[in-house]
């Protein structure tokens, strides 16, 4: 059987050419359609990342609030008080882990609330408080916390609350 799949002197396209062409168009369309949700998810990823950064910032703010003032009962004497306020060991634990949540609206996949994992570390030697938030890179697959953001802050030494008083041991005048 001889297959004469292209035109000769008369010109025009054969059936096979047309079918192949249409097949290519359909394939390209399908690929394009399949990519659109991915693009939308990409835009949602930015939203989740922004929310994760805010979660981390909020932890830093709460840590700052808790570590601003040394409680009067934390250390009553000036000598040890100075040492105590050299860092924030009195306020922060070395390591902690807890969860937070991000509430989304009108996400492509219908996901409304996703959980993010928060871990904090505090290094007394450098007085550095660090917070890490692990969040899903794909908000439609909230179980895979594959992306993360880390913020760190070194806080100023703790202050004495206005109106508080504490003891300053000084030597006998005879010894001064």
């Amino acid at each position, binding site marked *: 059987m001889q297959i004469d799949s292209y035109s000769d002197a008369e010109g025009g396209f054969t059936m096979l050419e047309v079918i192949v062409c249409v097949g290519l*168009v359909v394939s390209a369309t399908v690929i394009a359609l399949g990519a659109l949700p991915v693009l939308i998810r990409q835009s949602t990823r930015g939203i989740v990342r922004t929310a994760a950064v805010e979660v981390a910032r909020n932890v830093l*703010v709460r840590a700052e*609030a808790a570590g601003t003032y040394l409680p009067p009962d934390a250390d009553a004497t000036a000598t040890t008080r100075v040492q105590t306020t050299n860092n924030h060991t009195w306020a922060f634990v070395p390591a902690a882990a807890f969860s937070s949540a991000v509430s989304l609206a*009108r996400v492509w996949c219908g996901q409304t609330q996703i959980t993010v994992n928060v871990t904090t570390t505090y290094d007394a030697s450098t007085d550095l408080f660090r917070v890490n938030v692990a969040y899903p890179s794909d908000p439609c697959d909230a179980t895979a916390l594959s992306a993360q953001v880390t913020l760190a802050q070194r806080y100023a030494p703790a202050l004495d609350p206005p109106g508080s008083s504490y003891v300053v041991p000084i030597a006998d*005048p005879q010894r001064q």
Partner: protein
Amino acid sequence: MGWSERQYSATEGGFTLLEVLVAGMLFVLVAALALDTLRISDTAVGFSAMHAAARNALSATVTQMREDAREAVAIEARSTSCGAALEFIERDAAGIEVRTYADRAGTIVRLVSSGTIDPCAQTIPARILLSGASGWRVAAIPASSLPAHSDPISGVPDDGFLATRPIADVAVDTLVRDANGVTIRGGNGIVEVQLAADPVTAVVDLLRGQRASGATEVLAYACGGRCALNASFPEARGRALVGCTPSTLFANTPQYVVPASFRSVSGANGVTQTVVTSYLVSGAYAFAFGGPDAFVAQRSWPVRVWPPNGATIADPYPVVYGEDALAALSFARIAADVGATTTFGAQLAACAAMNQESVYAN
């Protein structure tokens, strides 16, 4: 009809029915696909644009809040007729400026004024930050409540990074008063803003106020070689102490007090008096020293016969006879009665001098 056959006629012109049908089907298929693609593309582009616009507006609002928080001496959560309002109080050489955030029927607005205003009044011009907000909450959280803080979205505790020590609430006077003359105070609490919008609910924690300090130092002297306490309280030597408080122990114990012998007599004017016959009396007393090296110095007076010479006198002390105990009118009187004036007086003087700190000024 095989593939080797011509699909159209070269000599007769026109298309066969099959060709027209196939071409029509292909056209319909491609047109349908194209339309669907356009529809989905339009939806997707609109969705992305909506997300981007909403995200930008929300992000700009949150950024503006944090910037205002950095410049504020205090942040207040206030109730208004249109819900909660968030106030940032700024103060500089030019005076006071209040930046107020409020929810006007789903539109988050920001107002700048020289004092506290009603942000709900539509007549007051405001800058629109965000439209289409579906929720707006502002809550002041004291620092002492931070160890019990929970995530506002999930309700799960998120305070694990804080040590267990209680956190002191500190109020800082901002020297700013609101419209009602009430002093606005900053401090170490936070204000938590929850802004439900498209496409995400933003939670923003803001530190309420400035870092002001104002502690009082209480000097504690370490008693050295010429310390006036040395003579009366040798155990105070080398200790860092603050203040001295004398106290007595007049419990009726055989060690210190012998029960009084007393009786009632009628006076000339008909008034009944309690008289005390001489008995052995003593007492214990203590000086409590505060400070880093706090301690209590306990002393007792020597046992004496009192009143002297077996006399019978009207009881000068408010005696609790039911408990066979004496309650002293004063340290000095007891000391004088038991003949310990010199020793006790020196101890009292050293204690008082320490409280006045003048003894250390030599």
